[in-house]
């Protein structure tokens, strides 16, 4: 008589002995069933945007340039996939320590989950190049070269990221990466909202893990055969520095959006006004981003890069405005959900 399976119906056989994957699968399936229209709509929007971007004329030009600079393409791919591997592994380690499945006498399927992440990311990159080729924006040899370089960079970067994180302290909690700021002398007699801004900045440090990121970039730089592909070393260094800058800015923006909900929920029972909340929460994130962009523009001007000041200022202002709007939007949405800063509340 066949033994009855305790697993819910519809679980793929591949997952049967991997409870961590089953849990993730069920989470996704439940989210899909509960919010089918939203999930499908969101996915369709993302696909449409990606296809639109891939088929756009400027993308073709950019891809042609990337194909003409193999070392840069390889470095970019290695950086992106290396950091992705570092983050995914850090998250898996954190989950291994805190997950409700942590005490089970089974492996966490970490390698499989890391590999799945790599495959999905690589597939997305290949599809992007494929769409650009299908739309006639790049030639077949260019597309093949880009796929080859991206795959090679992804493999090297993922391996480097994996090895690097493997040597790092296991299960370090998030706050380990944040800095304790010295308390103001008048904190008790004249309390201020200013420390609220430390929260998204600390979260950004957790996202970006500067120490790990810098080592990944160093490894990738050392892996670049500078000069052999007509790419001078300074270009490779500029690409690596640009990647670090980009990830720092992105981490700050992502953290500001990510933490807004928690902050609003925590302060919901207080009488803080919406504008005060947004101002106190967002200003330091924007200030740090402005400082990073300012340093980049200064360096670009120092090496006499043409149009550095004009283009840099325009790009920086656009980015800062977008980041500020995204963080403020997240704050408004979060505050409305929990009734923070609203004058009336009820049916």
């Amino acid at each position, binding site marked *: 008589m066949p033994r009855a399976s305790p697993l819910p119906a519809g679980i793929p056989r591949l997952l049967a002995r991997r409870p961590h994957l089953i849990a993730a699968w069920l989470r996704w399936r439940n989210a899909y069933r509960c919010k089918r229209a939203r999930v499908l709509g969101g996915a369709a929007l993302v696909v449409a945007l990606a296809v639109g971007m891939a088929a756009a004329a400027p993308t073709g030009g950019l891809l042609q340039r990337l194909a003409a600079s193999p070392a840069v393409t390889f470095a970019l791919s290695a950086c992106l996939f290396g950091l992705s591997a570092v983050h995914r592994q850090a998250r898996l380690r954190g989950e291994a320590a805190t997950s409700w499945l942590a005490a089970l006498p089974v492996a966490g399927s970490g390698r499989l989950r890391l590999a799945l992440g790599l495959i999905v990311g690589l597939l997305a990159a290949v599809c992007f190049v494929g769409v650009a080729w299908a739309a006639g924006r790049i030639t077949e040899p260019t597309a093949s070269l880009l796929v080859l370089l991206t795959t090679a960079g992804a493999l090297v970067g993922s391996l480097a990221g994996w090895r690097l994180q493997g040597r790092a302290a296991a299960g370090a909690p998030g*706050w380990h990466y944040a800095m*304790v700021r010295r308390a103001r002398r008048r904190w008790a007699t004249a309390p201020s909202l200013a420390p*609220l801004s430390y929260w998204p900045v600390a979260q950004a440090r957790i996202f970006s893990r500067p120490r790990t990121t810098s080592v990944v970039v160093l490894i990738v730089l050392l892996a670049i055969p500078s000069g052999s592909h007509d790419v001078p070393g300074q270009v490779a260094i500029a690409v690596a520095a640009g990647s670090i800058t980009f990830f720092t800015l992105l981490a700050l923006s992502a953290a500001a959006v990510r933490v807004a909900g928690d902050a609003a*929920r925590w*302060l*919901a*029972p207080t009488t803080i006004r919406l504008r005060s909340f947004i101002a106190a929460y967002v200003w330091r994130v924007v200030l740090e981003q402005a400082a990073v962009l300012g340093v980049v523009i200064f360096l670009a001007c120092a090496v006499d890069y043409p149009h550095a000041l004009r283009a840099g200022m325009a790009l920086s202002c656009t980015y800062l405005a977008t980041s500020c709007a995204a963080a403020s939007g997240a704050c408004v949405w979060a505050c409305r959900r929990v*009734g923070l800063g609203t*004058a009336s509340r009820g*049916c």
Partner: protein
Amino acid sequence: MASAMRDGESERPALQVSSLHAGYDKLAVLSGVNLELSRGEWLALLGPNASGKTTLLHCIAGMLIPSAGSIVICGHALRKDAMAAKRQIGFGCAPDRLPTLLTGRQCLEVYAAAKSLAAIDAEVLELAEQFAFTDMLDRFVGSYSLGTRQKLAVLLALLGEPALVVLDEAFNGLDPASALVLKKHLRARVSAGRCGVLLATHALDVVERYSDRAALLLDGRIARQWSTEELAALRAMPGEGLEAALAAAAAVS
């Protein structure tokens, strides 16, 4: 004029909940809750798991919009004048909702500023001292144990002399010495008529020894209430007292 207004506010009940209905999406959790609490009164909210205690507290704190009914805090309807109503509340949030990436000191400072306080009450700082919490002030909340987080949540709730203190399982995780300090502190505030305390709890010793009244929430409505006299009678009874009374009330409902 301000003092006259304050006097007027102190005469009004700290909390009036009428015909409250609330839930999450299609799930109805509260269906017609009626409750009243005065300053100088400690009301224990009892009920089995998933009976709607936390949902009721979230509605009172303005974090969840009820589908029907009204909540009035010190004369201010939460629906029409949320800010004035919230000014009177001290809400003890769940320990896992505290910001893990801020230090205890930063939490106190931000919360006090968010409540528009000119300074952090000396009494709250003294309570932190009694909790042996002062040494933890400059550590990240993420590094705190459950009990330490609970202490911080209580300290935040007591900031700014609230007329209504709303606490959800506030003694969970507290060591016995700190729990005793907190019970005595709350009792002193209540006895002085400075606030009303609404405490959702499963700790029957707190209900028997410190509460003035108790209410049993079952299936989203108040199934039974015990007055001060009834609680005193239960306290005097040998044996199971309140535990047996709770079981009997649940069985009747």
